[in-house]
C-alpha cells in the first residue's frame, strides 16, 4: 500500500517520466496495443508528447526564471523593450518546422489506417441502444453482444468483479494474423466502436456504413467501450474481442453455425407455460429490462410500464406486432430481426404473465412465424 502511494505521488509529480514506463500497471498512458497500427499510433502519441514537454521546458523555464529573478521585491528594474521583428519571425518559423516534422509520420500512419482493401474476414458491427450486433458476412453467424455485469454489482449490493462493466455475454471472436475489416453502422442513434488495443475507433452512424480494419498480433481478450453518447445506458455497452488462433476460430465459427441451426429446430417444438416463463425471463432481462425495468414498471414517460399495460393485457396479436416491429422513432426497437422466433414467443409470454399480468396466454414460435408471414 505504501509503495503504491509512493508511486502515486511520483505519478503526480513526474507524469511525463512515469507515463513512459510503468504505464500499463496503473493505467497512466495509452496502451501500446497489439497491432502494428496501434504501435505506430502509440509512437506518434509519444513523439508529440515529448515535443510538447521539450517546448514546455524551454517556455516555462524562461517564465519561471523571470518570476524568480525579475521580481520587484528583489529590486528588479523593468526594461522597456517591447518589439523585435527578428524574434517574432523566429518564433513563428520554428514551430512551423516542428509541425511539419510531426505531420509527416502522422500522414503516413493515417494513410495506412485508411487502407481497408484485401481483407480476410469481414464483420458487420451494428450499434443498438445499448448493445452491439456482430454479423460475420457470408458465414451465417450473427449475434448480439450485451453487457453481462449484473445489476447487483452496479447498484453496489454485490462485490464488483475484476471486469466490471467490461464483460459481455457473447464476445466477438476473431482470428489473429488476419486482416479483419469492420463495417460499422447503427440502428438508432450514433454509437462509436472502440478497442484501444487495436487503435480502432469508428462512429457507428444510422444509415451509413463506416469501414475500419485491424490485424491482431497476439491472442488475448481485448476490451473497449462505446464512445459516443447514445442515451441512457451509454456507459453500459462494452466491446469485448477474443482473438484466437485460426483453427480455434474456425472451430468456434462451426459451433456458432450449429447453434443457429439448433435454435431454428426449437421453433418446431411446443413448450409449457412454465418453460416459456423461464426462457422469457432470461430474454427479458437481457433485452428489455434496461428500459422497462426488471419489475416491469418502466421509467415513464420515456419507457412505459408493462405491468398492467393495455398492450400486455390486450389482444395477443397487437402485442406481438409491437415487439416485432417496434415503434419507429422511439427507443422501442423492432425486435423481429433481433430475437429468434422461440425467444420472441417466450418473451411475449413472459410479459403477459409476469408481475401480475395473469392472462394465461402461452404464445408459441408458430404464432410469431404466422404473424411475420401475414
Amino acid at each position: 500500500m505504501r509503495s503504491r502511494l509512493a508511486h502515486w505521488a511520483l505519478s503526480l509529480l513526474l507524469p511525463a517520466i512515469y507515463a513512459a514506463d510503468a504505464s500499463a500497471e496503473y493505467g497512466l498512458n495509452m496502451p501500446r496495443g497489439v497491432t502494428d497500427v496501434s504501435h505506430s499510433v502509440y509512437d506518434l502519441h509519444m513523439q508529440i508528447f515529448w515535443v510538447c514537454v521539450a517546448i514546455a521546458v524551454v517556455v516555462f523555464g524562461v517564465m519561471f526564471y523571470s518570476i524568480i529573478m525579475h521580481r520587484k521585491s528583489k529590486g528588479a528594474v523593468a526594461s522597456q523593450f517591447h518589439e523585435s521583428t527578428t524574434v517574432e519571425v523566429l518564433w513563428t518559423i520554428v514551430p512551423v518546422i516542428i509541425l511539419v516534422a510531426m505531420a509527416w509520420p502522422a500522414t503516413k500512419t493515417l494513410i495506412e489506417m485508411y487502407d481497408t482493401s484485401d481483407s480476410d474476414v469481414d464483420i458487420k458491427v451494428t450499434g443498438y441502444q445499448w448493445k452491439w450486433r456482430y454479423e460475420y458476412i457470408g458465414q451465417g453467424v450473427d449475434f448480439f453482444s450485451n453487457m453481462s455485469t449484473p445489476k447487483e454489482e452496479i447498484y453496489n449490493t454485490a462485490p464488483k468483479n475484476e471486469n466490471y462493466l467490461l464483460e459481455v455475454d457473447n464476445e466477438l471472436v476473431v482470428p489473429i494474423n488476419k486482416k479483419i475489416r469492420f463495417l460499422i453502422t447503427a440502428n438508432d442513434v450514433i454509437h462509436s466502436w472502440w478497442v484501444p488495443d487495436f487503435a480502432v475507433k469508428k462512429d457507428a452512424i444510422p444509415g451509413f456504413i463506416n469501414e475500419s480494419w485491424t490485424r491482431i498480433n497476439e491472442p488475448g481478450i481485448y476490451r473497449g467501450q462505446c464512445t459516443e453518447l447514445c442515451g441512457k445506458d451509454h456507459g453500459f455497452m462494452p466491446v469485448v474481442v477474443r482473438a484466437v488462433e485460426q483453427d480455434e476460430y474456425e472451430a468456434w465459427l462451426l459451433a456458432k453455425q450449429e447453434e443457429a441451426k439448433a435454435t431454428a429446430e426449437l421453433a418446431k417444438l411446443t413448450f409449457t407455460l412454465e418453460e416459456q416463463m423461464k426462457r422469457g425471463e432470461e430474454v427479458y432481462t437481457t433485452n428489455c429490462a434496461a428500459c422497462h425495468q426488471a419489475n416491469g414498471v418502466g421509467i415513464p414517460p420515456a419507457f412505459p410500464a408493462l405491468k398492467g399495460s393495455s398492450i400486455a393485457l390486450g389482444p395477443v396479436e397487437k402485442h406481438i406486432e409491437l415487439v416485432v416491429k417496434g415503434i419507429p422513432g422511439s427507443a422501442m426497437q423492432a425486435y423481429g430481426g433481433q430475437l429468434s422466433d422461440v425467444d420472441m414467443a417466450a418473451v411475449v409470454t413472459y410479459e403477459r404473465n409476469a408481475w401480475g399480468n395473469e392472462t394465461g396466454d402461452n404464445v408459441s414460435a408458430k404464432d410469431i412465424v404466422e404473424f411475420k408471414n401475414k
Partner: protein
Amino acid sequence: MSAVIDSTNNSHSEDGHEEHHGPAKGIARWLFTTNHKDIGSMYLWFSFAMFLIGGCMALTIRAELFQPGLQLMEPEFFNQMTTLHGLIMVFGAVMPAFVGLANWLIPMMVGAPDMALPRMNNWSFWILPFAFTLLLSTLFMEGGGPNFGWTFYAPLSTTYAPDTVTFFIFGVHMMGISSIMGAINVIATILNMRAPGMTLMKMPLFVWTWLITAFLLIAVMPVLAGVVTMMLMDIHFGTSFFNAAGGGDPVLFQHVFWFFGHPEVYIMILPAFGVVSQIIPTFSRKPLFGYHSMVYAVASIAILSFIVWAHHMFTVGMPLFGELFFMYATMLIAVPTGVKVFNWITTMFRGSLTFETPMLFSIAFVVLFTIGGFSGLMLAIAPSDFQYHDTYFVVAHFHYVLVPGAIFGILAGVYYWLPKWTGRMYNETLGKWHFWLSFVGMNLTFFPMHFLGLAGMPRRIPDYALQFADFNSIASVGAFMFGTTQLLFLYLVIKCIKSGEPATDQVWEGAEGLEWTIPSPAPYHTFTTPPEIK
C-alpha cells in the same frame, strides 16, 4: 458590482463628478437602465449565478463519479447534468461574463460615453434570464431536461430526444439573439465611438480581442440558430435533415454544429487573451511585447477557426483527404497561439514583477492554458486522436483551456478592475487564498483526467470500470475543493463592495490606459466629453 453602485455610487453622484444625473431608484434602475456600467454589472452577476448553478451540476456529476457503481442517481439524470452543465457554463457563465467585461470596459478604454446602442444593450441582457429560466425549467418537466450532451448530436437530440427538447431549442434561439445583439453593440461602439486620436492600432488589446470576438459571434451564432431550427423542423414538421431513413444525414448535424462550435471555443478564449494582455504588462511594469504581432495573432486564430471544425469529427468516417486537411489546418493554429504565449512571457522577462491576485491568475492562465494547448496539439494528430476522441483526455483538454483559460481570465479581470468599479480594494490575502485554492483544486480535478482518458475511460458515462477508480476519486475531491472555493470569491467581492479600503484612481502602480485616468469608483457617466489621446 451592481451593489457597488447601489451603495456607493448614489452617494457618489451627489459628489457630482462630471455626470448630469444619477441612476433611477429601486428596481426600475435595473429593468430600464441603458447605462453600460449597470448593464455590465448585471451581466457579471448573472454570469456568476450561472457559474454557481453550472458548478453545482458539475459537483453532482463528480459526486456520482467519486466511486464506481451507481450511488446517487440514475443514468438519465446523470446525462441531464452533463448536458446542462455544459450548456450553462458555455452560454450562461463564460459568454455573459465576457459581455459584462466588454460593457464595463470598452467604453472606458476607447473614451466613449456609453455603448453605441444602449437600449439594445438593455434588451440583450434581459433576454438572458428568460432564456435560462426556460432551459432550467425543463428539469422539472415530464421527461426531464435535455440529456443528449451539450453538443446535442442528432438523432439522439431529435428523434430520440425527450419532448422538452423544444424548450431547449427556443432557449438556444434566445441566447443566440442576445449574443448577436451584444456583438453588434461591441462592433458599433469600437468602430464609431473611439475618442479622437484613438486609432485602431492604439486600442488596448482587450478591445482588439473583443472586436474580433464580436465578428466571430455574428458569423457563427446564426449557424447555431440554423442547426437548432433544422432540429425543430425534423422534430415537429416532418423534415429529414438529420434522419437517414428520410434521406438526411446525421453527420450533417455535426458539420453544421461544429462550424458554429469551433469558432465558439475561440469566442470563449479570445477576450481572456485580451484581459491577460492588459494585466501582465501592468504587473511587469513593462509594455506588452509585440503589440502588433498580438493583434495579428488573434486575427489569424479567428480566421483559422473557420477551417478546422471537422477535427471534432475525426472518427465519423470522413474521406482521407478531408481528414488530412483538417489535421494540417488544426496544427497550424498552434503557430499564432504560440506567438501569443511567447509574447506574454517576453513581456515578463526583465520586467519588475509583483504578484497581486490578478497577476497570479494571469500567470496561471499562461501556464495552464498552454498545457491545454499542448493536449490540443496532440488531439490534432488524427491517428492519435482516434485513441483520444470522446475520452476523458478530451475532457481534460477542454477543461484546461476553459477553466484556467476562460474562467481564470475572467477572475483575473474582475480582480484587476474591481477597485475601479467599486472604488474599493479587495482583500489581497483573501484573493491569494482564492487563487491558490482554485489553482490546486482545479489541477487536482482535471490533471488526472488526462490519465483516465489515455487509459481508456470514455466521457459522459455515469459509471466506470474499476481501474479508473483512483483517479476519479481524486478528481472528485479536487472538484469539491475548487467549487467551494468560489464561495470565498463571492464573500471577497461582497466584502470589497461593503468595506474595502478606498482605491486610488490609478489603482495599480504600473497600470496604463484611459480607464485608470478617471476617478475610482468610475462615475456613472464617463467621457461625456472625449478625452485627449496622446
